[in-house]
């Protein structure tokens, strides 16, 4: 079979299997492997201060969370404004173990990969519960269901003595084969752990969309009656989309808990839910590239906003807290502007640039 290496014009696929490959060309695969190698190698070469390592780790965690949100909003077409609460469910399921057994118990420090998976499963269960109304309803109502879940979550954490009324619950340092991960290596170690999780889960998303289960999500989003006629149960598909999204959020939450070595209430508020949504929209709903680019873009913007707020606050001390004002303002503007002018997000720019270089010197 003659392989068209660049896919410059037309489609030469002769089977569905060929079309569904993860990497369409060898060059694609090569670029991806190089990129992955770069991601794994750079911390060994460059020394980055803990502050920036923390930012990078947070971006990776946000990427995992946004995979889940993008599955729900982008692929299944269900808006969730309670995603931070699902992330919080993951984090607080680790915290529950920490409260019962103590933060330094072996289960938490030695078997942390197991804990992360458990947190994901707990997130999935909660996701499915919140998604239950979708057995009877169309998507509009589900926005409200997720919002009310966010509210119930915040109340539960804020008012329960078990969770210390939202105060930080400490989680001990974990062990690796070489022994305890000490303070100096903490962010470095978790960078690799989170990166491995992000890559595996990213492949899972990509592979999911090659299967019946994944495409049924898209079918339900595009036309649920047609999907129903083809033998896909729209209600169950939606519940299952919620469960999947909850699993990703739960994993992200557990990683968040381990990275910060504690779980506090203030990381999982409605504002965070909105910023997750902003990440998914800015990246590009319904694309895998989007859920990677979006968190990077939004968290970089967040850093810049913080710098700007510091700068402005220096001169305008009279005006209240500029940082608290600028953050929602910039997030809101980004959401609205992207939806109005580039609803397909940054992933679309990426596609445009790629096709430009592929077709060069022709315009189309």
């Amino acid at each position, binding site marked *: 079979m003659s392989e068209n290496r660049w896919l410059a014009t037309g489609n030469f696929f002769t089977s569905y299997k060929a079309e569904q490959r993860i990497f369409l060309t060898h060059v694609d695969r090569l670029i991806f492997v190089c990129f992955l190698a770069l991601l794994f190698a750079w911390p060994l070469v460059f020394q980055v201060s803990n502050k920036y390592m923390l930012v990078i780790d947070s971006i990776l965690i946000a990427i995992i969370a946004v995979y889940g949100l993008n599955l729900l*909003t982008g692929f299944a*077409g269900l*808006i969730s*404004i309670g995603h931070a609460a699902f992330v919080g469910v993951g984090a607080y399921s680790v915290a529950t173990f920490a409260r019962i057994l103590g933060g330094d118990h072996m289960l938490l420090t030695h078997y942390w990969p197991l804990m992360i998976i458990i947190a994901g499963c707990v997130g999935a269960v909660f996701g499915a519960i*919140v998604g*239950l*109304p*979708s*057995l*009877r*309803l*169309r*998507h*509009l*109502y589900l*926005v*409200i*269901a997720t*919002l*009310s*879940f966010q*509210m*119930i979550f915040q*109340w*539960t954490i*804020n*008012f329960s*003595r078990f969770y210390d009324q939202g105060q930080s619950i400490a989680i001990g340092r974990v062990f690796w084969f070489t022994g305890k991960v000490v303070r100096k290596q903490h962010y470095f170690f978790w960078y690799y752990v989170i990166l491995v999780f992000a890559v595996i889960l990213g492949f899972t998303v990509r592979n999911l969309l090659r299967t019946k289960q994944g495409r049924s999500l898209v079918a339900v989003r595009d036309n*649920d009656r047609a999907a*129903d006629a083809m033998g896909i149960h*729209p*209600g169950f598909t*939606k519940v299952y989309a919620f469960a999947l999204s909850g699993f990703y959020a739960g994993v992200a939450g557990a990683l968040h808990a381990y990275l910060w070595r504690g779980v506090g209430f203030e990381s999982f508020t409605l504002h965070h839910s*909105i910023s997750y*949504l*902003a990440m998914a*929209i800015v990246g590009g709903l319904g694309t895998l590239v989007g859920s990677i680019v979006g968190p990077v873009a939004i968290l970089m913007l967040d850093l810049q906003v913080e710098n700007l707020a510091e700068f402005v606050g220096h001169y305008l001390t009279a*005006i*209240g*807290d*500029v940082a*608290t*004002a*600028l*953050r*929602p*303002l*910039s*997030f*809101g*503007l*980004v*959401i*609205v502007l992207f*939806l*109005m002018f580039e*609803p397909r997000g940054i992933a679309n720019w990426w596609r445009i640039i790629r096709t430009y270089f592929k077709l060069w010197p022709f315009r189309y």
Partner: protein
Amino acid sequence: MSYFFQLVISGVVVGSIYALSALGFVLIYKSSRVLNLAHGQIIAAGAFITYALTVWVGIHIAASFLMSMVITFFLAMSVERIFLRRLIGEPIISVIMVTIGLMSIIDGIIYMTPFGAENFSFPEVLPKVPISFWGVSISWTQFVGVVITFIMIGAFTWFFKASTVGISMRAVSDDQFASMSIGISVPKVFGLAWAAAGLSAAAAGGIIGNITGLNFDVLHSFGIIVFPVVIVGGLDSIFGAVVAGIIMGLIQQFAAGYLDGNWGLNGTADVLPYIILLIILLIKPHGLFGIHEIERV
């Protein structure tokens, strides 16, 4: 027993404010099927405009109450014109996400003003001695607030039942294409629905501000408590919003009065509406008075 009646009175007061807040939400949903998540922020903006006009400019409170309603009327109309008009025909999901963005933007703008961080309270114009009867009491501010609320709700009901514009709005909510074919301008109706929602939001904001004082967190939480109210009442029913608003107010007051402090519970009034919301979504998704849509999954 008088404790019970006191709770009933304050439940009705809170509930009628919920009803007024939910009214604007229902107006937008009824005409354009958009869930307006920024409604609480519009309520807050209305309250702050009323305060600014009363205290900083120095107009009489009744006049500034009316003026803020007019200002918010045009504000909401321009929000619709700038942000939502170009999204007509886009999937409804992106319109809802735009309102989430709007919520964030208005949050940011309000945080820039002194209202974002500090608390203010309106000057007292009504008599301070509460109205007392049969051992229960209601303050004059609350009484006037409830009266204004019911006048507003009555006016809106009349507007929808009898006026030409109201009828055309109902026509649009029923069938956009059919109403276009008989010469109703659908974008104009959407604009008007937003404007009317802004007007009622400003009224709600002014009343809440007078009763509880101006605190941004409290004010914009009214935009979220609206959801349980409209779901229980049925998303597209004004009458449902009124009934459900009062039910919700009563439930909250009873929860705060009887549940809190017992069995280690605290702040149940804040969470009960959302639990009820989830249950209603599961067992009776159209609410009490909503239109029973035939299509279902």
